[in-house]
């Protein structure tokens, strides 16, 4: 375990470095928080909604599929180190294992689990999309209810 000593020392040094910098900032930087500064960043608009706490399930799927592949990779490492000693037996075992993983991977692909976005091609120029309709869609809060009122004095 001696070989891990430098890693521990480096970890301590890195943490001390971050902590030191942050503490220095705390002492020398001004602290004048206002409500506007502490609001979530929203490109200048006053945020009207809570940040979404949910995101598409597809991201969870990727994370789960990753775990399967990560386990496969972890199984490959010991074989890679000792493949000479294991010989033909190890190779055939590895091939069978890879085929099993490949089949499950093919199943995922055929379910469309790793596809993103729509399959249908959407033409980028739709006649329905004008500057007026875009404004309508993006942010109606805080705006006059009809775009024609914008120019009114």
């Amino acid at each position, binding site marked *: 375990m*001696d*070989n*891990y*000593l*430098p*890693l521990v*020392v*480096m*970890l301590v*040094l*890195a*943490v001390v*470095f*971050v902590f030191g910098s*942050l503490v220095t*900032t705390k002492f*020398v*930087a*001004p*602290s004048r928080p206002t409500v506007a*500064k*502490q609001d*979530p*960043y*929203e490109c200048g608009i006053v945020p009207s909604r809570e*940040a*979404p706490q949910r*995101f598409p399930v597809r*991201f969870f799927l*990727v*994370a789960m599929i990753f775990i399967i592949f*990560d386990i496969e*990779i972890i199984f490959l490492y010991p*074989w*890679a*180190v*000792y*493949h*000479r000693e294991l*010989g*033909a037996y*190890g*190779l055939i075992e*590895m*091939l069978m294992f*890879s085929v099993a993983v*490949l089949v499950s*991977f*093919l*199943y995922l*692909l*055929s379910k*469309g689990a*790793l*596809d*993103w*976005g*729509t*399959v*249908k091609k959407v033409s980028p120029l739709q006649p329905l999309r004008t500057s007026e309709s875009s404004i309508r869609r993006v942010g109606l809060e805080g705006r006059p209810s009809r775009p024609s009122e914008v120019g009114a004095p």
Partner: protein
Amino acid sequence: MGDPLQGGDPIFIGGIDFGVVALVVLKVLIGFTFVMVGVIFMIWFERKLIADMQNRIGPNRAGKWGLLQTLADGIKLIFKEDLMPNKADRLVFRLAPYLTVAPAFLTFTIVPIGGLFGTGENGTIEVFGYRTFVQVADPPIGVLFLLAMSSVAVYGVMLAGWSSGSKYPLLGSVRASAQMVSYEAALGLSVVAVVLLTGSLSTHDIVSAQSGGFADWNIWRTGVVPFLVFCIAATAELNRPPFDLVEAEQELVGGFHTEYSSMRFGMFYLAEFMNTITMSAIIVTLFLGGPDGPSLFGPDIIWPTIWFMGKLFIFLFTFVWLRATLPRFRYDQLMDLGWKRLIPLSLAWLLVIGAIRIADDEGWNVALVIGISLASCVVGALALVGASRAGRIRRRAEEALR
């Protein structure tokens, strides 16, 4: 090479006494300084080079040629107000910079940055009566440690975005995590080919197995494909262009660190460039022989470090060059490239290399083995194409129902 699990720095052979600990601390400090100076140089270099490529002048005020620009920026950041959004999860928000910076420093420790390999010295030098490797640490599980650290880095990004309690950071961090874990699989699979040829996970052993000169470098011995896969996956892992969807300014403002300011932001910025340097160093170590190269004149001992820096520099330049040249990927293209191309490709390549080596050992007909391997690769590729086509048909049917 000896027993693969027995690698390790000769400094620890005589047990740990005060001198050993002092030397370890000295080595860590040198490594730390190397990384910090490297980061300061790299940020300047990137800005200057991008400026040149875009016909601008770039930083030129602080110091000669603007060399001190990074330092000036750092000092400025220290004096800036440190804000925390009121919706933030305060503990996790504070924790995230640590989780990002610590892996960046730790990964660099396993990179051999000098020492003569292929001679009796085997990459060691003598300092104060102790014999030691010219690398900060040589854990016997070196390559696994690299993968572990890149997994921990995902936590830093994910938690930073999630804890901000804000829209854009959350979107940026979710994207970042999905991208980083996807390419981590490809990264891991391409390194297995190197481990297969070396028979050891220790970075020191990997470098000393390549010390026979140019033709012995792993880039040739693994047949270039793992090298290319590793480079692409490393770029994606670093969230650098053309894989920088994580901080696509046009849609996500600053990505996962939008809500960070002052030195907390500075930490993410540092870690990003530190990771660039470390990843380049890892590519050099795994595939380009690390510090391997001929000594030309003068003392032999300085040449490995010069060669290492030279190779490192090529990759740093290439990363900046890519950023100046390539447009960003679309998200579905990014995921397709990672999952449907790089992962199957590197897995198949690895199994073919393994089969050839076993065939060599067992005295099978190598040409026949290669033929069977290629045939099975073609079958596998066809199955992949068929499966993704089936997936598309299924999804089109689902969309029609909606």
